[in-house]
């Protein structure tokens, strides 16, 4: 027997363990992409090669500690990862197992106290975790699909084609739903139980993206609050624009004062004229839409919005709030 410890093996294991811990920790805070992770690493002068990161992410996802979402941003697919309930349990266990010195060490390394991780609960710095885990979302999604496609038989394959989550994750969600008594499996097809039907009705109402789109609009400051949730539903540009809006919060100017040919995003519309609002919205003058002033006339503007040119009077332009937004 070799008395000397295998130094290479030891460091590798230490590194691997810490790395997993790090990913789970970060992905528990909020959904992160691979790029986010490698960038975060830079803060600690820690180069992480993609070759190392992605297999690890894949591995953790396969084991069910992470769940992966694909988000289409400007035509590119970005994968986002989020720690699952199981991953959180693992984090908790690790925290409980570790001794004080190790916790101190991790606090320095991660840059946040490792003592008070309120896994699955509230965290500091104004970032409120979504009330639902992604597992919950996937579960609700499955119920949603069952409700939406009432007329057809719902196979596991069909669910997999509808939900962007790994197969193992879906099967776990289905298992839990079965345990909750919301669905039954009949000859390989998913069937709603009486309870399940009631729940579906609730979900279908509750789960419109717009509900959230909405809330964001009214309370820009809490935009990041449910970003995971949004990322789950809204993809690509809309999401990006919402994110941009949140960054620009408070700096928007009335369209009236906006410069010629500058590109902007509409942040808000303020009006007292009743019917006008619907007309504006139905013409694409809507928070989050891009807008550009093409021409100025003595008493109004010609703007380019939703790929169309529309004339807006000065009085109306006062009520449209915009922020500068260079094409990314």
């Amino acid at each position, binding site marked *: 027997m070799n008395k000397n410890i295998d130094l290479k093996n030891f460091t590798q294991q230490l590194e691997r363990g810490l790395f997993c811990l790090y990913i789970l920790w970060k992905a528990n805070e909020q959904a992160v992409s691979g790029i986010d992770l490698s960038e975060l690493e830079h803060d600690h002068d820690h180069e992480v090669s993609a070759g190392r990161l992605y297999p690890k992410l894949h591995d953790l996802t396969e084991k069910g500690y992470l769940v992966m979402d694909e988000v289409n941003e*400007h*035509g590119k697919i970005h994968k986002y990862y989020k720690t699952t309930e199981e991953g959180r349990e693992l984090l908790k266990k690790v925290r409980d197992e570790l001794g004080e010195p190790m916790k101190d060490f991790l606090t320095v390394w991660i840059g946040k106290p490792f003592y008070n991780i309120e896994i699955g609960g509230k965290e500091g710095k104004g970032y409120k975790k979504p009330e639902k885990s992604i597992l919950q979302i996937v579960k609700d999604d499955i119920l949603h699909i069952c409700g939406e496609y009432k007329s057809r038989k719902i196979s596991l394959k069909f669910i997999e084609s509808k939900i962007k989550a790994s197969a193992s994750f879906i099967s776990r969600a289905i298992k839990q739903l079965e345990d909750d008594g919301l669905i039954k499996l009949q000859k390989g097809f998913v069937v709603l139980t009486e309870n399940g039907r009631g729940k579906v009705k609730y979900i*279908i*109402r*509750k789960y*419109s*993206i*717009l*509900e959230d*789109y*909405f809330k964001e*609009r*009214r309370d820009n400051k809490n935009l990041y609050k449910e970003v995971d949730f949004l990322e789950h539903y*809204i*993809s*690509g*540009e*809309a999401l990006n624009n919402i994110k941009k809006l949140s960054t620009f919060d408070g700096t928007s100017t009335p369209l009236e004062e906006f410069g010629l040919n500058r590109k902007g995003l509409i942040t808000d519309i303020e009006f007292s*004229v*009743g*019917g*006008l*609002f*619907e*007309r*504006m*919205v*139905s*013409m*694409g*003058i*809507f*928070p*989050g*839409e891009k807008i550009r002033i*093409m*021409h*100025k*006339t*003595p*008493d*109004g503007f*010609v703007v380019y919005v*939703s*790929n*169309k*040119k*529309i*004339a*807006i*009077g*000065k*009085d*109306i332009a006062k009520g449209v709030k915009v922020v500068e937004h260079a094409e990314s």
Partner: protein
Amino acid sequence: MQNLKILLIGQPNVGKSSLLNSLVGPKVIVSNYPGTTVEVIRAKKIFDGTKIEFEDTPGIYSISDRSEEEKVTERALFESDIDGAIVIADAVSLERSLYLVFQVLEAKIPVIIALNFIESAEKKGIIIDYKKLSRLLRVPVIPINPLKKTGIKELIDAFLKLKEARRVTFTVKYDDDIERAIEEISSQVNGRLPKRFVSLRTLEEDEDYYGYLKDKNVIEKAKKNLKEHPKVAWDISINRYGTAAFIAEKITQLVHIDEESKSLEDKVDRILLHRVWGPVLTVIAFAIIFGILLYLGGWIEETLMGFVEGTILPNLDPGGGFFGMALKAGLTGLMAGVSIALPYVFLFYVIFTLIEDSGLLSRFVINAERFLRKLSLPGKAIIPLALGLGCTVPGASATRILSSEKERFYTASLFTAVPCSSRLAIIMGIVGHFGGKLLAVYVLASLVVAFLIFGYIMKKVMRIEKKPIFHELPELPTYRAPSIKNIITKSWIRMKSFVYVVIPFLIIGGIVYSGLDVLGITKVVVKPFSLITWWLGLPDVVVVPWLFSYLQKDLSSVMLFSVLGSRIAEVLTPIQIYTFGMATTLGIPCMIATGMIWKEFGAKKAIFLTLVSAAYGLLFAGVAFRIVSIFLNRSI
């Protein structure tokens, strides 16, 4: 035979009428100015043993009750038993089209989406997965190009399957609180309209739907629970558009494209919408129209007149007796119509349609807004007014593009001082020819003054409120090369009423006059009008031509010719020619125009307007000739 009734719905200028044209043949006016269809146009055709009746509706952005277009479309949606609706969607701004789609779906009407302008979208780098759209909304989506006639067959196939209708299953989901309010109101909805739709409309404060509720208080009650939504109508709109944008984005792929071609349009617009050059060019454009009318129209008129007088009339021997005279008089009337009015009217509409279809008109409308606002009118009022320069009849029907009944009637009242081609014929043909070109300019200038004064008085009397500028958010369509076929078809449709209504009137008028003349009644008629002839400073001989001007303006010219012949310049002084011109041109031009206003606004308003404008015309002419005579005496 199976019958289907299908509604065509879409935004203004989205290609509804072009689509209908390629479905049933050229029956519809297609233009590049938003808002050409001001009433529902019906067309029928048999496809594969199924009779399909299409109803083309005015372009709308949403189903609300703000404008006449929206009301007309809304009525078409609910008051006739339709089997479904084709919503024509614009691939360039899909989210906007989807907003309307959602509202139609909310009304539980089976929808087929016809996706137009795919090529234009692709040029802008927008690629749409229409199959995915179909899957998401669970409605058929068919890409079309009415100009190239592609997708038409597929669309017809979709209609024929409409009866085995898929029921509408897609619904826009609102916020929990709003959904609760919808449920609450739904329990109080009466009648056959979909409960959810009525609930939404009432929540959106559309009072037209309050009548469907058993108890109107339910709205207030439901709203009380909506503390999170102090402006629930807004939130519903936003929610709906949010869903539209979300879905549009899901199926859209953006590709980067050079913006070269777009910048040319922007350069043109920079000049046409310039604060100085814009209005100047607008005025120049209309001046050019008049120039062309004057010279080209005048040339056509002279050629026709020459042909008629030189070739037809001398070889015509109707024989003596009453019938002979009547025939000759009738023919004279017909000739007047064909040779005087026709060249002007038709030419005018050809040029006007050219401007409209190219997309220039919408720019002129933007420029006109600034000036028409002085009369509390939106810029687009320039369209009925400009059409009125051709003939008041299509002008009066085009007032429908305005948003309120009040605004429409106000605009129609302005036709009093907008000379139609027949009145222009008096100004050019009688005043200009016998009194000199300068005198014609005097008449035109006086008409401008008369227009402004009358507009101001009517504005005050009718209490027309000034609205925020561009309150209708006018859209500027992309420039397009107009198709000649389209222009000819459209001009013909516009002047059809003139040909079928005005010309018969001219013939009958001619016969009636010769009848009166033969019976010697004209001399008796003159007597009671001595007060008016005194006021206008005119000799008795012009009374009959002046009276006939109320039947049809062209008759005045015809009558004056037949009374005085070429002695007009000898009998009448320049001032009298001027006064005659003013007295015959101010006022609602003719009985046909009155009839049209009657049809549009009811008998009371039509008679009121005709009398008021006639009185105003006489008053103004009398005052004006006294003022102008001072100038003329000095210059002569």
